């Protein structure tokens, strides 16, 4: 009897343990794992793209250790990634309520609110935090990036980036700020920053190029021309920059400089029409009609020249008193009324040997 009872006593704990483990496994098949183990597995599974399983593991990790902000923030991020902003918002709010230093939870709240369509609340949340912690660089950067996502919040983004740049003169921050200022067409504020960049990286030709562009957009063509001149001293063979330099010089009424650039381009691109027309216009402006006519001649003598080109060519010929060629050019041009009038005028000039006032 006693021996039988002893056997039951020996078996009882084993049966009890077996039942407990079976029941626990039935309730949660990951019951044996520690919160850290669950969290690490969730990260691994998430990196493999299995968001559903990652979410399950992260939820269990945080349930087991709700005081661990890292677990909560990760769970919130997974909710956001799987398109569940309401759940993300609740998790992040709870984490942030427990741990006011968990800025990851604040970021999660902001993103969740944005996804829920309450962008104003998201921006207010950020503004409130940054009012209390004006020197938090990480959050300033996040706020800048977040606000920059929408055109209507660009001004706020610029303010955050300006504050961040005052805290930390990081070239990358300055670059972001410059892009935002350019997008907002606030060139006047952008120019000093771009000057800083160009001074900090003198070998960076792109920085100098951007500075030239900013001056051009600011309609300070003189300054733009000078910077393009510096730029072309370093990169004389760059045709794109040469064209921009020509346009800037043209706009700045620096005709000789514009001509020299267009001549370079004209030579490099073997008489490209765009440059020929620009040269003709500048030479004509300068009173060099023979040069203008010479550069237009190849275009006008093509099989089917454009009427505008033909007319300009005829006019330049007229201005250098090559009446015969001018008459021929006018006759070849399409507009009958104008041609008839001008042809008659030229014939009259030729017949009477009139001296025109030009």
């Amino acid at each position, binding site marked *: 009897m006693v021996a039988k009872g*002893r056997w039951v*006593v020996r078996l009882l704990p084993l049966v*009890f*343990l077996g*039942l407990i483990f079976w*029941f*626990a496994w039935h309730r*949660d098949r990951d019951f044996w794992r520690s*919160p850290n183990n669950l969290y690490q597995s969730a990260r691994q599974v998430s990196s493999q793209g299995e968001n559903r399983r990652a979410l399950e593991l992260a939820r269990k990790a945080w349930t*087991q250790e709700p005081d661990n902000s890292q677990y909560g923030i990760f769970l919130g991020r997974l909710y956001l990634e799987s398109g569940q902003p309401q759940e993300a918002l609740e998790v992040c709010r709870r984490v942030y309520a427990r741990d006011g230093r968990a800025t990851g939870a604040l970021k999660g709240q902001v993103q969740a609110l944005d996804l829920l369509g309450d962008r104003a609340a998201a921006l207010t949340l950020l503004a409130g935090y940054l009012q209390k912690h004006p020197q938090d660089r990480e959050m300033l950067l996040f706020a800048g990036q977040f606000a920059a996502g929408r055109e209507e919040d660009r001004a706020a983004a610029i303010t955050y980036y300006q504050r961040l740049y005052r805290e930390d003169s990081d070239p990358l921050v300055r670059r972001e700020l410059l892009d935002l200022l350019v997008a907002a067409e606030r060139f006047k504020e952008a120019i000093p920053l771009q000057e800083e960049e160009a001074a900090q990286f003198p070998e960076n030709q792109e920085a100098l190029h951007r500075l030239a562009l900013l001056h051009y957009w600011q309609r300070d063509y003189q300054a733009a021309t000078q910077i393009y001149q510096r730029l072309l001293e370093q990169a004389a063979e760059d045709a794109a920059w040469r064209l921009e330099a020509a346009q800037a010089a043209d706009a700045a009424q620096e005709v000789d400089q514009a001509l020299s650039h267009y001549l370079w381009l004209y030579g490099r691109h073997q008489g490209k029409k765009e440059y020929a027309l620009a040269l003709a216009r500048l030479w004509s402006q300068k009173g060099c009609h023979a040069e203008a006519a010479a550069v237009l001649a190849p275009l006008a003598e093509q099989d089917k020249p454009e009427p505008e080109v033909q007319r300009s060519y005829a006019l330049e010929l007229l201005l250098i008193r090559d009446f015969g060629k001018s008459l021929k050019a006018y006759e070849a041009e399409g507009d009958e009324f104008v041609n008839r009038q001008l042809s008659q005028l030229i014939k009259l000039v030729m017949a009477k040997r009139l001296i025109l006032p030009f």
Partner: protein
Amino acid sequence: MSGLVFPIFFVIPLWVYWHGYTSLLGQEPVYWALRGAYLASTILMFRYLFSRENALKQFKMLCGLFPVYGAAILAALFYPPGRKPPYRVNNRNPFAESGKWWCLAPHLVFIILHGTLPFLSLWLGWALPRLIACNAIFSAVIIWVLADLVVAAWSKPHWSTALDPRQAYGG
């Protein structure tokens, strides 16, 4: 130790099942290292203390008789110095069947609680399954230790002919 410390050990898992609280989460390796050292020390202590004479059985008796030791401690505390409790012969009729089932009540209460609370806690979600499973190991040990004594108490004692007290004392 038997009268005060063991009952605390018996109650701790029950408390965990009920409240689901533990201060050990996140520090499991430290806990198992300390607990292992404690277990090793206990085993060595009992081997030394009982001169290797069936140490496990003696340990189980020490655990199982916790109400007796506990009552003795209370008696020592409540009787003033110089005044001892009256003497009672505790083995006046050693071969009579004992009908005092309530002597086993503390053991039975602990066995029932350790056998049911973990399931209840799992079912109702009072504690984390991992915590319950971990404490169930201790519950199993407690059930094993106490049930052995209960079985011994409820069974009719048998002795070998040489060790039969009837032969020694006359029955």
